[in-house]
């Protein structure tokens, strides 16, 4: 069907439509002071099986990250080029981990993809973190591959303290145009999970089994 006739039909339908009037709107949750936000974020992350580390100083980040990675016996990693703290990839290479190339070529794409099969760790930098749900917000783009938080067994997200907000609704209100500026934005709330087999919680069904969040002072 062509666009115009489709939309004309929808427009005509909405004329005779019998929709009720909405009720009046209520207000949002109040904003929280930064210290309370961090406490809430920590506890809510724990509920969704994510682990919060720090806050550490910017210089302490490479050591914190390589500590987590070696704790999981990872031998390879993917990392964003654009991270909120310097020196992370070289710290991981220094402990003997291989860096996996993350630029997907247009040709022979599936051959490249198969190289992602067994990546151990992925490191990303969060645009924001949401205290109420224990989520991190990743904005993808140049030097920021989507795969880094998706195919590895362990995902480590770096978050600056002042990027904490209370809920998705609060954050979206303050950043109304961000989704237009990027091809892909994702909110991540804990490790990949399913309850499809007899409602038993199972972590790491397709995405990472472990999510670590390193807070930066």
């Amino acid at each position, binding site marked *: *069907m062509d666009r115009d006739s489709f939309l004309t039909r929808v427009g005509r339908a909405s004329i005779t439509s019998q929709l009720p009037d909405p009720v009046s709107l209520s207000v949002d949750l109040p904003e929280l002071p930064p210290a309370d936000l961090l406490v809430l974020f920590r506890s809510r992350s724990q509920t969704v099986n994510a682990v919060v580390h720090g806050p550490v100083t910017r210089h302490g980040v490479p050591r914190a990250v390589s500590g987590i990675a070696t704790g999981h016996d990872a031998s390879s990693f993917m990392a964003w080029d654009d991270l909120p703290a310097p020196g992370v990839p070289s710290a991981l290479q220094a402990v003997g981990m291989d860096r996996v190339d993350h630029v*997907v070529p247009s040709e022979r794409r599936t051959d490249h993809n198969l190289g992602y099969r067994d990546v151990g760790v992925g490191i990303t930098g969060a645009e924001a973190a949401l205290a109420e749900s224990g989520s991190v917000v990743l904005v993808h783009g140049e030097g920021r591959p989507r795969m880094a938080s998706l195919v590895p067994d362990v995902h480590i997200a770096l978050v600056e303290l002042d990027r904490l907000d209370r809920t998705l609704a609060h954050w979206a209100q303050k950043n109304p145009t961000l989704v237009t500026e990027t091809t892909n934005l994702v909110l991540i709330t804990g490790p990949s999970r399913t309850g*499809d087999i007899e409602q038993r919680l199972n972590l790491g069904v397709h995405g990472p089994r472990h999510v670590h969040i390193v807070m930066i002072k």
Partner: protein
Amino acid sequence: MSQPVTFLGRAEALIGTHEADAVDRGVRNFLELREKSVEELPALEGLRDRARAIRLHALRHLDRLLTHFADQMQAAGGQVHWAEDAADARQIAADILDRTESLRVVKSKSMVSEEIELNSHLETLGLDVIETDLGEFIAQLAGDTPSHIIAPVLHMTREDIGRLFADELGVPYTEDPFELNRIARAHLREVFLRADAGISGVNMAVAESGSIVLVTNEGNGRLITTAPRVHIALMGMERIVSRWEDAAVVLETLARSATGQRLSVYTNVITGPRREQDPDGPEEVHVIVVDNGRSRILAGETAEILACIRCGACLNACPVFRTAGGHAYGSVYSGPFGSIVTPGLHGMDPWWDLPFASTLCGACEEVCPVRIQIPKMLLQLRQQAASEGRLPGWLQAGIARYARMTVDPSRWARAKKWASRLSGLISTGGWIRRMPGPARGWTSSRDLPRPAKESFNDWWRANRGS
């Protein structure tokens, strides 16, 4: 397998089976999760009001929102297609796959794709189509249909799944859910990375930015929109909100109502295909906007049901769904909302009996995150079925006679006297255990108290009346 054509027929075949037991157990778990999450956030009530207002606003201005969405998505490099009906939508999807030479197709959960029966169509064209949501993957492997919109294999036990994996994937039998999960992960990982195209649904589109939002807990919705060259999204035309801030409110409400989570694990916002500087992502993004009966619903009395955000809360709350399970509804969309959507999309014939598959207890409306007046619409559809003469003759005649009786006091008094006298013949100890004729069904699972010997009016006249 030939299916009975009525809700009652299908339900009677299911009740008491281990499928129905599994559904009841599973649903109770969902209800507990939801209650926990609702208790914790007093502001949820406010969130529901806002979500309702946002959804109703979108429906009122649907043509304008869709226009804006399409313009913005196209500006971002995506393509938007318009499908009048199921055949149209299947054709568009097949054409895209053909043109892009895609043979291996991976799918994340999409109710619309089930509604338009996309898989079987693509399979007849020789394409390899694999469901990647764990529950849907299991259902596909079993050659079964999903029975719950959030938990597709709610009706299967772990032993069922263990046997299935052993038979179909050639792995040793296990009934350990963790081991079963590991097997599926390893099997599907290869499938994702080798796929040419990914097909997803759309939880919500954002008109202002031209974005589509996909919500999953497993990560399959992200993998199929990242790894393959081509991404095709199937979108029911009503799944849209005006702004990103509106989407945020609806997303919070959705997660809490569906599974009691504060947000689903992955909320994926896609605005067009990979741009030049992006390291990954699909080369092409297509959105197929599907009408398939929705404009007919929008034009009529049940338009409000299009505000539904597909959380599944009304299924879990419904005593009929919990007793009979999703398969009893015979349609992709089951439970209370399905009993309105299904006759709306596909016509009253043969679906007119679904609105009767409810006790009208109102639990569905109470839990609905957008406060849809489900019982009211079920009644409207029942009325429509009656006025179209679809009820069995004895029922229609009986109700008409009952109606005449109740509006005339002297007739009503006479009827009560007769009811009291006749019931004396078939009752024992004040209870009727078996009603005669078509009323037998009512007493097949419960007893009916015998009407009192004397009516209250008679008693009042004899004792207190002046």
